[in-house]
């Protein structure tokens, strides 16, 4: 059985004037255990809405959304979330206290949760930074804390909403390498939202490209089958990039045409 399945999922919102508009429509997708799925699409296509639905922060307006065959009814600790900005961290807690927050909620004893949090800080490369508060950390470090916080809770699925979108290019590249390494070690299922094609190819086992919004839906799924290094020197990488780029470009043009009409 699929780990996650979305069947004809739609989500519509009501605008301030009271008109309903659809963020995503007829969205169909199944995810298997252990995948690193990257959801790619132009801005405004509804990819963050999909993540929000998977997390359980919002519920679908239509269709079925299931985790191991059971409908998702709300947020739960089997789905960890890493947000784009740093405003989800708790600035009054230190890095290690942020990481152990989930364990604290469950009443894990102080010593044990501290030990586990330290292991995860180590895993994300933040050894020695545990006593710092989030405002004292750089953008990349804060995202590492977020990843450690989500992983320390041992979720089945890690949901990431453009987690490196606000980082500079160098930091972003380093974070991608780290995340890929962590995923290989942890064997956790990842859903990763991005609008960066390179990022999707470097990280994913599969990429889904969305159509332009409103009412965005899945246009095409592509497996990332690259033998060897995932760098621009690899001809398969370039071919895949071109294919995805063409798909995204179509949607961007369509979105512009819609807007102009």
């Amino acid at each position, binding site marked *: 059985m699929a780990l996650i399945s979305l069947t004809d999922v739609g989500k519509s919102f009501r605008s301030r004037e009271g008109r309903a508009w659809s963020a995503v429509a007829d969205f169909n997708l199944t995810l298997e255990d252990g995948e690193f799925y990257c959801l790619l699409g132009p801005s405004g296509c509804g990819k963050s809405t999909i993540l929000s639905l998977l*997390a*359980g*922060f919002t519920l679908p307006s239509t269709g079925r959304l299931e985790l191991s065959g059971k409908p998702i009814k*709300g*947020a*739960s*600790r089997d*789905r*960890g*979330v890493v*947000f784009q*900005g740093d*405003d*989800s*961290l*708790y*600035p*009054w*807690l230190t890095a290690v206290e942020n990481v152990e*927050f*989930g364990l*604290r*909620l*469950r009443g894990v004893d102080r010593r044990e949760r501290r030990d586990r949090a330290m292991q995860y800080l180590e895993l994300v490369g933040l050894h020695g930074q545990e006593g710092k*508060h989030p*405002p*004292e*950390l*750089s*953008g*990349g470090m804060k995202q590492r804390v977020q990843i450690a*916080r*989500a992983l320390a*809770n041992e979720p089945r699925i890690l*949901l990431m909403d453009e987690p490196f979108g*606000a*980082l*500079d*290019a160098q*930091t*972003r590249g380093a974070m991608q390498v780290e995340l890929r390494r962590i995923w290989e070690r942890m064997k956790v299922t990842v859903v990763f939202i991005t609008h*960066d*094609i390179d990022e999707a190819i470097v990280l994913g086992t599969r990429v889904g490209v969305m159509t332009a919004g409103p009412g965005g839906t899945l246009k095409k799924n592509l497996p990332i089958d690259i033998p060897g290094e995932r760098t621009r020197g690899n001809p398969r990488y370039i071919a895949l990039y071109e294919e995805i*780029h063409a798909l*995204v*470009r179509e949607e961007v043009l369509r979105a512009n045409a819609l807007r102009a009409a």
Partner: protein
Amino acid sequence: MSEATRTLPVSDTAGAAGSSASSIWQAIKNGFPYFLGFFSLFFIWHVVAVYVVASVLFPPPYAVLLRAIELLQDGVLVENVGASLQRIIIGFIAGSLIGIPIGLIIGSFPLARKILEPWTESLRFIPSVAMITIAVIWFGIGEPSKIFLIIYTTVFIVILNTAAGVGAISANKIRAAQALGANSRQIFFLVALPATVPYILTGMRIAMANSFTTIVAAELVAANAGLGVMLWQGRMYMQIGDIFVALVSLCILGFTADRLFRFGVAHFAGRYDVTP
């Protein structure tokens, strides 16, 4: 497709722990402009009083200091300062204790906001000074009327700031807690409340400043002791020195209270940085 990457400044707070000699030098360098500011205050006061105004109606600093020593020695200053300070402390603490829970409720529940806002949004525009007459009629000229007025001046600003603090919590802080498995009680006590602390403390600081204004006005109208009484009697008997001693006392008390409050925040709640 070109991607514009936003670059975040990497805040590597370099450990600026120099030798102790250089840190003393640093302290002097930081403290000197401050000292200069205070010094110029008294210096200009002195120059204006002695050379520009040159009247008994505007005593220079040293004359005020001499009068203050006299008033300290016969206990008048201590009695009046003590009376004002006691009222402020009781009213300020009581007002904060009332205001914080109400602010949390208003900030957390839209229904409560709708019900309570007509109260807060109308009553807060009555200056506490305007409530003096009714406070004296209701509670007499003793302590209860003063404490009532301090509570009145404290409670609304604390409510307002606390509610604003709850409203300013980013949705992602709550969502992150939900995804980590928090129930609503845990979200309130472990996320919403600590996230609101800086706003509560800011509200309390403003309230403290308001308390000084209010207490003097209340004591001017009706009281047996306090800095306001000192000011009023100084006018009645033309004791300019006493008036100035009272005014300077207010400066020192307000300054000290604010510093103590900030120090307390830094010491006990350092992790919640309060707006300077």
